[in-house]
């Protein structure tokens, strides 16, 4: 199992210890312990309001735990200057607003803010990192377009480029596929997978779509009611028992004919048949 893996010096990249999380006195998680395996592509799954995004916000220091602590590179994340965190960890939040009239390249360039200072402004390194981020997300040819004119999928890739331009070893993505059609969902997750395979990133994403989570992530954290129910590689999480516990659904898990990974197929209650003739299921050879 990969969960136990650590940095060479024995410290975790990103972990939460005995976290109490909530908003305005509304408690969401209690005593939560979580370790993000270094170098992993971790997906956090679970039903609505189970505390996935809250956990991600805590891991990205946007939410301060009422007790417990999040450690980044072995130190309490709230002990860093916020700019130093921004050099180690980037976040793609669920909601963001592009300023009126901003172009793609200007927006992505803002990702270099944590590396700049009053005395050190936009440098050649910054320029190179911005170009790299735009190339990786395939938005280079959109550079001079206004962000507001772009399609939803293009816009999401631009925001992802902004996070990439930050050039951090840890990348957190809060529901990066929301509002996207299937083609754009695949595009974004394939990009994440490519980044993961380079070995330079630890990715953590909150995902709603189980088939995408099990398909692209190599580590899955399943949550319910603010607790972590199970964590591990997709093959160990995608089981009828865990799906029943987490979502309250009955399912069978079959082998994804396209990838060989697990595929969760929900069952209808009381064995109702949806009367799909078996021979209408087309599986490419």
């Amino acid at each position, binding site marked *: 199992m990969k969960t136990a893996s650590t940095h060479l010096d024995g410290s975790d990249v990103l972990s939460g210890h005995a976290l109490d999380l909530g908003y*305005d006195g509304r408690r969401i998680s209690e005593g939560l312990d979580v370790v993000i395996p270094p170098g992993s592509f971790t997906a956090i799954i679970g039903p609505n309001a189970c505390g996935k995004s809250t956990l991600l916000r805590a891991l*990205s*220091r*946007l939410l301060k735990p009422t007790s417990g602590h999040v450690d980044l590179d072995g130190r309490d994340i709230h002990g860093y*200057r*916020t*700019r*130093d*965190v*921004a*050099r180690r960890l*980037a*976040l793609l*939040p669920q*909601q*963001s*607003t*592009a*300023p*009126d*009239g*901003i*172009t793609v390249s*200007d927006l992505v360039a*803002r*990702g270099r*803010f*944590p590396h700049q200072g*009053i*005395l*050190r*402004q*936009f440098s050649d390194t910054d320029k190179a990192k911005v170009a790299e981020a735009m190339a990786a997300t395939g938005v280079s040819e959109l550079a001079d377009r206004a962000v507001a004119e772009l399609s939803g999928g293009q816009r999401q890739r631009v925001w992802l480029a*902004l*996070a990439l331009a*930050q050039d951090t070893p840890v990348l957190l993505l809060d529901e990066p596929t929301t509002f996207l059609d299937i083609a754009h969902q695949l595009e974004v997750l394939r990009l994440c997978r490519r980044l993961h395979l380079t070995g330079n990133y630890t990715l953590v994403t909150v995902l709603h779509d189980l088939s995408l989570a099990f398909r692209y992530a190599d580590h899955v954290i399943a949550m319910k009611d603010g607790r972590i129910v199970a964590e591990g590689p997709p093959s160990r999480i995608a089981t009828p028992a865990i799906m029943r516990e987490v979502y309250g659904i009955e399912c069978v898990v079959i082998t994804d004919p396209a990838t060989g990974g697990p595929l969760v197929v929900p069952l209808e209650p009381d064995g109702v048949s949806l009367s799909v003739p078996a021979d209408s299921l087309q599986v490419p050879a």
Partner: protein
Amino acid sequence: MNALRITAAPRTLAVGIALAAATALLGVLAMQTGTIKFSFTDVMAAVFGLSDNPQAGMVIHRIRLPRTVTAIGVGLCLGAAGATFQSISRNALGSPDIIGFTTGAATGAVAQIILFNAGPAATAVAAIVGGLLAAAVVYALSVRGGVSGGYRLILVGIGIGALLGAVNTLLLLKGNEDMALQAQMWLSGSLAARTWEHAVPVAVAVVLLLPVLMVQGRSLGLLEMGDDVARALGVRVEASRLTSMAAAVGLTAVATAAVGPIAFVALAAPQLAARLTRSVQVPMGTGALMGAALMVACDLLTQRLPIAVHVPIGLMTGLVGGCYLLWLVTRSRSI
């Protein structure tokens, strides 16, 4: 200045230089104007203390230079304050004269004149106190869960502004006629008879607070993308916002104390600057310079217009700034 490499976009830099040049030129033109007319060289010589014309030296140094310096300083203050609050509220209406700070300063000044009548220095102090108090109340009422800014700031500010406006009218009605007239004059804003006593505090505020806002400008730009994005990028969100607001409120209060409430410069200057630079950065420097140019231009107009009535600067800024903004907005396709 090689270590400090401020890389502004070329267009922004050009607009900044052009505005600074225009301000200087208009300032000299304004200093030529008055009961005694001076030539361009007379003014230049007097400003740099090289004048062999003792009359010019005295008039320029004692009367016209402090007036022009006050105008420029107030313009810089209001332009930068406007840019700050428009960015924080993400709204062009979020300028200090709309969200109650200028009205608060006026309340302080009017209350001092009507209730205590302790002279111009006390009026200036009362205006600063009034402006700061109004800002503190607006902030306290608009902050929610440790987060300020946005639409809420504007709504609360407009509410406080309306309330204080009513208080001002009540105070005017309560005072005797002399005091009420004096207060009314203060309320229309004026550069007349401004001496170094007025110019120096404004200049000090500009020197101390404008650099703070110039530095915060980039953080404010990131804050326009939402608190989460800004924080993820390493902006100390609430600290940055509070610092900027405090500096902008300080500039507004000091400017208002010096010349009374000035209409429209804080609202129009950053908008005009943003349209000229076509930049998405917060127009902090260019907004301030545009404010200065507007103020000096209006001062020049009030003195040179061939009409018998004396037009206070506060009215002229409303006229000129309003027309310029309307012209610019109606001829551009985007908002």
